[in-house]
């Protein structure tokens, strides 16, 4: 009987090993190998120790990429969470069409990122994009801003789009968290004369803390993985100014065909993901 029960979960175990564990191990191994295009033909990839890492660290684009990743992640999380929380608090109010509006807000989150990224690329276009045209006609700028073509604003533009992508997710989860805070607490505080801000500060924020840590850690793991948005908007350019570790790893492996280097950057991402995955599991345990 035990064997028969195992038969139902055996495919999932096999799947876990073949499709997650094995690729993970492959990438870890490749990070320590001199793995190039010729490795595909000869099947030979000599052990290289830490050489891939030394070369990646010395790559002129590396330091900027790390800074970009930190700024992109911090900027995305801060604004996604802030706006998501504001919207969640707003939708706690009781008004007509609340439910319809809330579910329609999810649409941007569910579309393929390549599609919404493409729409944004058209909006941010320097000469005919609607953003520059509107800003120009309002006299907020004197000449078009090359949102995606300038090294000084590309990272900001990419972060802005990623914030837009992440708002619905943050709102939904935080709204769910708010729903579990009993109304009586707010009513009691109001009777005691606490204003809206004090109620938010002393009831909402502390009671929302477990959900907050889940949202932030999940958001962090998700933001580190962002690929589609950056590729469609800027491909990490111009001159690596919007390159993050994920797009850098892709660039090394699939554009420069230095698979060992790409895998080494991938391994750095794994280390970061592991650290935050532990954080997530802790937060999850605390919230349940």
């Amino acid at each position, binding site marked *: 009987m035990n064997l028969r029960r195992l038969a139902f979960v055996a495919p999932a175990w096999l799947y876990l090993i073949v*499709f997650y564990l094995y690729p993970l191990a492959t990438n870890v191994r490749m990070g320590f190998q001199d793995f190039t295009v010729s490795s*595909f033909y000869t099947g030979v990839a000599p052990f290289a120790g830490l050489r891939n890492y030394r070369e990646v660290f010395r790559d002129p684009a590396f330091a900027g990429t790390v800074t970009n990743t930190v700024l992109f992640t911090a900027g995305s999380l801060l604004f996604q969470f802030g706006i998501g929380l504001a919207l969640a608090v707003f939708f706690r109010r009781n008004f007509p*069409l609340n439910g319809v509006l809330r579910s*329609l807000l999810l649409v941007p989150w*569910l579309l393929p990122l390549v599609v919404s990224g493409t729409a944004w690329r058209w909006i941010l276009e320097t000469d005919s994009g609607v953003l520059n045209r509107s800003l120009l006609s309002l006299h907020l700028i004197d000449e078009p801003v090359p949102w995606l073509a300038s090294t000084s604003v590309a990272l900001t533009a990419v972060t802005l789009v990623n914030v837009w992508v992440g708002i619905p997710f943050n709102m939904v989860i935080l709204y769910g968290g708010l729903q579990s805070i009993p109304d009586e607490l707010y009513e009691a505080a109001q009777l005691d004369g606490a204003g809206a801000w004090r109620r938010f500060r002393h009831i909402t924020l502390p009671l929302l803390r477990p959900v907050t840590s889940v949202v932030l850690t999940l958001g962090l793991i998700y933001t580190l993985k962002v*690929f589609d948005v950056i590729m469609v908007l800027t491909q990490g350019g111009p001159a690596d100014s919007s390159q993050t570790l994920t797009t850098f*790893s892709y660039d090394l492996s699939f554009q420069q065909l230095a*698979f060992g280097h790409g895998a080494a950057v991938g391994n750095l991402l794994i280390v970061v993901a592991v650290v935050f995955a532990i954080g997530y599991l802790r937060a999850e345990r605390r919230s349940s």
Partner: protein
Amino acid sequence: MRRALNTAIGVVVLAVMLFPLYWMVNASLLPSTELIKPTPTWLPIHGTLDGYRNALSSQGRHLITSVYIALGTVGVTLLVAVPAAFGLAQLRAPLRRPLLFGLLVAQMIPGIVMANAFYVAANELFLLDTPLALILADSTLCVPFAVLILHAFMGGIPAQIREAAQLDGASALRTLWSVILPVSRNAVITAGLFSFLFAWADFLFAVTLTTRDEAAPITVGIYRFIGAHISDWNSVMATGVIASLPVAALLVVAQRYVAAGITSGSVKD
């Protein structure tokens, strides 16, 4: 009065959030000459369907490829996830926690890491540019989610249902097929729809595991289309709208099933 004001604020927020999508639909209907005029055209009154004609003729093949891949992914995902969820939730198979934990952690592996390894494996197995490679790769985006959602649902099915079937002499497999599956229909449909959605939207695996244009699904089709026809925003946006349609259609259906999945109970006390 205050309630109406709140609705108005909500409508404005929604309009801002959905503006990029409106702007995509707008551009998909406007001729290229309108798109490069110095003042934006806010409504596509003198619209054209040329963009859609171009999109279908150049991207039709990629759309079909995407349908195949998404359907294949749904199949593989359910084939792995349904028995696993049944074994975990109903048969209480040994080592339940490690498997669920493993699936939870597996979702956190950076996609680019998987893509690196899949590329090497697909190359060795001569699977580059085949739908099979993308089906298998895309299923890794879906299996953990599907197992978790089906497990949660099947865990709520009373054990008496299964025991009654087994008393009648049904094997475990038969019980799953003719008793548990019909009861869990909504959860299965939800898991399937989301798998379709994930596979349809995948770009990372699509761009790394296809080298020839004929083999590429729609996400890569759009990506290369912008690269090659950057001035033809009309056709690019029409392609974007077409690529969003299956998702929009599925969502309308899925919403019903998600809601039904939560509220429907199979046994009433």
